[in-house]
């Protein structure tokens, strides 16, 4: 049974938050399936990473989870309900920070609250409270004191931190990250791994992280899924049973590199076929 498998994130009885049952998605009639026969379940609080070659349907998977696209075949159930349209319980961040350049960091964080209920209708009265929440979130990611800076005054890494904060401000159950660290240099990237790890440890939302960095997947995730070339199928499900809390040092240990090598072998096999 998938859900009772032993993982370091503990609670094996946790509720299933995302459930894919034999899901296909075709963008149009001619192109064939972008992803095919995908079945998996994600527990509440689980940290899932999805790896696979470029164009295999990782972003497509995210669109299905977030309800931006309906499946062509099969069922997608999120939070106990069949998905039919955008879910307000998700927060998303991408490789490009997509902050609004005319808004300060603080006002960029406020954007989701201007859209999602119940914040939208209470924003006027509770602005102070929400800004305090934004400020503490910015502090957790190390952006304290940058509330009133505009995106162009922030480095790429700082913008990406703000972008992740924006994805979390409305306290979503599910955080979707599509190659969020892909454009950053190696040092900044590892720093942000730790930022994300700490955020997740503290708040225990569910994370789906799409990445092409196998070390990133192994360091952060409870479970790694490897996808095949288009049409994307789930080839391997790999549980990362490294103890938590994980420190960056672990990435130099043999048990860690063994996992990375194993994942790489699967990817290598995809390339050859």
């Amino acid at each position, binding site marked *: 049974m998938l859900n009772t498998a032993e993982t370091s994130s503990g609670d094996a009885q946790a509720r299933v938050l995302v459930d894919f049952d034999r899901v296909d998605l075709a963008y149009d009639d001619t192109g064939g399936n972008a992803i095919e026969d995908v079945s998996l379940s994600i527990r509440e609080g689980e940290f899932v990473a999805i790896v696979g070659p470029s164009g295999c349907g990782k972003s497509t998977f995210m*669109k299905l989870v*977030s*309800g*931006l696209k309906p499946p062509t075949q099969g069922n997608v159930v999120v939070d106990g309900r069949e998905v039919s349209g*955008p*879910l*307000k319980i*998700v*927060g*998303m*961040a*991408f*490789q*490009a920070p*997509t902050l*609004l*350049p*005319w808004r300060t960091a603080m006002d960029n964080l406020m*954007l*989701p609250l*201007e*859209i*999602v209920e119940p914040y939208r209708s209470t924003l006027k009265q509770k602005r102070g409270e929400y800004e305090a929440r934004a400020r503490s979130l910015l502090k957790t990611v190390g952006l304290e004191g940058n509330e009133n800076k*505009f*995106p*162009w*005054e922030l480095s790429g890494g700082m913008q990406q931190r703000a972008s992740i904060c*924006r*994805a979390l401000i*409305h306290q979503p159950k599910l955080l*979707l990250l599509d190659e969020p660290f892909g454009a950053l240099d190696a040092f900044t990237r590892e720093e942000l791994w730790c930022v994300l790890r700490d955020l997740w440890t503290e708040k225990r939302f569910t994370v789906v992280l799409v990445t092409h960095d196998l070390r990133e997947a192994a360091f952060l995730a409870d479970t790694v899924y490897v996808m095949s070339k288009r049409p994307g199928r789930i080839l391997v499900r790999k549980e990362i049973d490294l103890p938590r809390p994980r420190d960056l040092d672990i990435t130099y240990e043999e048990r860690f590199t063994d996992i990375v090598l194993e994942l790489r072998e699967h990817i290598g096999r995809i390339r050859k076929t």
Partner: protein
Amino acid sequence: MASTKPRKDAWAPWVFTAVIIILWQAICSGFTVSEFIFPSPAAVVKSLVEFAGPIADHAWQTFWTTVAGFGIGVGVGLVLGFIIGSSRFMYNALYPLMIGFNSIPKAAFVPILVVWFGIGTVPAILTAFLISFFPIVVNVATGLATLEPELEDVLRSLGAKRLDVLIKVGLPRSLPYFFASLKVAITLAFVGAVVSETVAANKGIGYLMMSAGSSMRMGLVFAGLIVISAMAMVMYVAFAMLEKRMTGWATRGMDSKL
């Protein structure tokens, strides 16, 4: 980079203008060019002073006609730009029409407008409007229509309605485009008003130049030319300054990437 240079070189355009005027005067005096063909700067200044009163009258007429046409152009341009930019269907339906309309020389409308509204102020206002609203439409529509797909996903996954996206992202994003188009539109509006005045009015700088020309008072014709370009330049600079004030974030954002 571009924003620091003009400060240092601010004297340059003035010096060049002075050089051109001196050259102009020298050629006119040196070759004794007839005042009826090509008046010297001195003769133009003389006309400017001598006819200051009537010139001011005509200039005021041209100015308010232009601003009225420009004002309508801004209103219509904003509405049309919003409609075209906010829906893909409208974009596909109206954009080709707009391009077709834009390729008509606007002076060709003047005879029609004269038949409809008679000689005078109305054709001038309408010509100014017809010629000036197009850049506004295109710019507003472009600003609204270009939304990064990722940002759209972020907003839609939060359950944002189309109107939310337009107001929170589309409008602010199209503002720099809008203000950039204003300075182009105001100069075009001057062109429209003056073109209409030269053929279908009995007031305005266009009319003044036309009638002064037909009585061979070339000093006055050139005086009119100088007045109209001064007005257009002042308005251009005013709108360029407004643009800078309103949308500093757009240019500063770009500076940091350079």
